[in-house]
């Protein structure tokens, strides 16, 4: 029972309160990034099967035109982010490490870049299955970072009975503000998307969860919710990782998703607010996803902001546009708590990339620190939102007892939020150990 709950604030147990640095960009309106000369459209920018290319080298494409199709149910098509000519389909560097195939697109700088490809559906007379198919056609995936194809969530397991849609507007990662801007500037799209998804899921209640450091967003949404729509907006405690699906479900509904299960097991489907706004914008017009909002922030850039970026834009181009300083030392894709630092600046912006945080070398958090032995201070135990025992798990993992950690200490319930490493006064790389332990367990199982 935390203090937050005593004061009847909607929240979950444990978690941490890192400084959020959101004031760098939270007041900056959405701006459009110019088109880079060449875009790199990865065929796999979503969870599931990589898209299958529909274009040949040398082929001219128009912005919004499908250039790759879904390769199966858990897959989505890709659309040309700009008018130009396909240079080739090659292996390129990715943020994850291994090279992966991508469509290289040389942008016609003189083209109008108007989206001509659209097929507005007759939304009134659509069945749930039709909506699913249309949604897959837009290429929309979870824009909060997971990049899981959204249409798949519309078909929950047979035995699941859904009663609530949750729109995740927490944005608990420090620095990131793109969801905040979406809630302020695209409130209508967000509500339209929410209503469409309520229809597609046949639920009559939608709850929009927003961390209480974004009161203006709560107000903006509340003022636009139609009467009797079943949509409500809730301020939840500002605490990392409030935006984790399982945490938000607990905060709003006091339900816990069973270990290894999906939110549908407790009657819930969770969508990021950015995803819903994209649905509300694209689905009624029958368009494809060609750009996304990216927060570029951190002390390593001189022009931080919330940029509307064409998919496939190289990170290098984005950096230049945001005014990367020579002192910039680390480039993180996503937020600083769970994001990934990149080795190559040639990796492209993908559908799941919500932010780019550039830190300087003098940023104190980046200094190498001496690792002490675990002193059993229990800070990690008090921080873990899943109520695991990272102290013990870390000691086991350090001794390479990977199977024990997995079988007896719920290793696979860890979703790598990083709270344990964040608080550890001994500077033990706990979550890093757990990643290794998971990888080795998966290998052994295979």
């Amino acid at each position, binding site marked *: 029972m935390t203090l937050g709950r005593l004061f009847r604030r909607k929240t979950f147990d444990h978690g941490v309160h890192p400084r959020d640095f959101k004031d760098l960009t939270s007041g900056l309106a959405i701006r459009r990034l110019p088109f880079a000369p060449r875009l790199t459209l990865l065929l796999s920018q979503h969870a599931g099967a990589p898209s299958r290319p529909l274009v040949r080298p040398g082929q001219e494409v128009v912005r919004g035109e499908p250039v790759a199709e879904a390769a199966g149910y858990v897959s989505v098509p890709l659309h040309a982010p700009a008018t130009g000519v396909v240079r080739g389909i090659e292996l390129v560097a990715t943020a994850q490490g291994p090279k992966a195939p991508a469509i290289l697109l040389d942008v016609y700088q003189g083209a109008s870049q108007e989206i001509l490809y659209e097929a507005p559906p007759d939304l009134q007379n659509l069945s749930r299955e039709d909506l699913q198919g249309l949604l897959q056609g837009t290429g929309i995936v979870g824009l909060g970072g997971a990049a899981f194809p959204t249409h798949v969530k519309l078909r929950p397991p047979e035995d699941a009975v859904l009663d609530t849609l949750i729109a995740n507007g927490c944005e608990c990662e*420090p620095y990131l503000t793109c969801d905040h801007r979406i809630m302020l500037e695209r409130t209508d799209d967000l509500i339209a998307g929410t209503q469409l998804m309520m229809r597609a899921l046949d639920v009559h209640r939608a709850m929009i969860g927003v961390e209480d450091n974004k009161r203006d967003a709560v107000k903006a949404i509340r003022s636009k919710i139609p009467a009797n729509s079943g949509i409500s907006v809730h301020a939840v405690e500002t605490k990392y990782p409030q935006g984790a699906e399982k945490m938000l479900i607990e905060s709003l509904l006091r339900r816990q998703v069973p*270990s290894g299960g999906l939110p549908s097991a407790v009657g819930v489907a969770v969508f990021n607010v950015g995803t819903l706004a994209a649905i509300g914008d694209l689905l009624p017009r029958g368009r494809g996803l060609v750009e996304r909002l990216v927060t570029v922030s951190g002390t390593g850039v001189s022009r931080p902001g919330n940029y509307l970026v064409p998919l496939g834009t190289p990170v290098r181009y984005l950096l230049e546009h945001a005014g990367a300083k020579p002192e910039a030392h680390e480039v993180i894709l996503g937020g600083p708590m769970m994001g990934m*630092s990149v080795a190559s600046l040639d990796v492209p912006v993908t559908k799941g990339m919500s932010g780019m945080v550039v830190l300087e070398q003098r940023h104190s958090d980046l200094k190498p620190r001496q690792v002490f032995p675990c002193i059993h201070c*229990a800070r990690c*135990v008090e921080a873990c939102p899943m109520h695991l025992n990272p102290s013990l798990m870390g000691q086991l993992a350090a001794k390479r007892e990977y199977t024990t950690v997995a079988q007896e200490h719920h290793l696979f319930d860890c979703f790598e939020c*990083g709270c344990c490493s964040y608080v550890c006064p001994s500077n033990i790389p706990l979550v890093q150990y757990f990643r290794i332990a998971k990888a080795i367990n998966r290998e052994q199982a295979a």
Partner: protein
Amino acid sequence: MSMQDTDLRVELRTSPHLKQPLSVDQIMRNVVYALLPVSGYAVYVFGISALALLVVTTLACLLTESLFCWLSDRPNSLADGSVAITGILLGLTLPPGFPLWMAAVAGFVGVGLGKALFGGLGFNVMNPALVGRAFVQAAFPVAITTWTPPFAPNRFLEFIPSTLSLPFLQPPDTSQWSQQVAVDAFSGATPLALQKFQHVGTDTMDLFTGAIAGSAGETSALLILICGAYLALRRMMDWRIPSAVLAAAALTSLPFWLMDPSRYPDPLFVLLSGGLMLGAVFMASDMVASPVTPLGVWIYGAVIGVLTVIIRLFGGLTEGVMYAILLGNALSPLIASVTQPRVYGVQRKKAKAE
């Protein structure tokens, strides 16, 4: 601006890329700070003998840690500050007139046997200061129960006669000296012993302010509470442990006192006398030797509180805090393993079946 302009040298790390700015050496340093007022007051009450005692135990602990680091070919670990805490705590638990060479032995055994042989910081099963004290309690039973009066007139100028006794020789008898320097009539017993064997109570106010005979640091309950509160407020000490210890001690002694107030001490006396306050606030709360689980912490504290009172009321010793904490330390891995927190989304029964 061309594409080639940006040629940053970027570093690869894995998340999280942010870190709470608090490290082990900072925590340890703050515990040392919190112990300084307690030490200073001990010196004020008992004079230069207490000062010499604290200096000797601290130096003995520091040297022992260095020696074992050198022997085991590990980097010197004095900088983490934990061994300084052990030294100061050890000094605070000994009688102020304790012979200095015995104090050095206690420091050596405490750090050597209680910590270094287990693998150093983080690996010790028990509180090293108490291991050292337990050793000298067994080795030098007379010296460790020889008490001297507080506020002796010349305390800042002359040592208590036993302080400077030579190694392996019988320390001089201090009872004569104590009678001379005592402000009031001095019986040579601590409030605990007076209560236990003669059923003579001690003024609560004296216990609070520390105008009593006892170990160097177990005198002023009030000062210890304030210093502990500083640590707890800075979140460098788990407030639940002292709370559990003190609550359990008070609750255990309550029924006995209600049955026979002339024979058994009242709960307030139990809390304020002897080493309970120092032990609860600064030793039971030792992170390394206490459980990490939220429920385990309460159980661990309660075990220590109950054991302390049982030893005090029914044991042969007047004071039981030391053994109670050592036993609690020994139990703590077991307590932690049976009180693992319920993982999010996992039913308890199912967890057991697995």
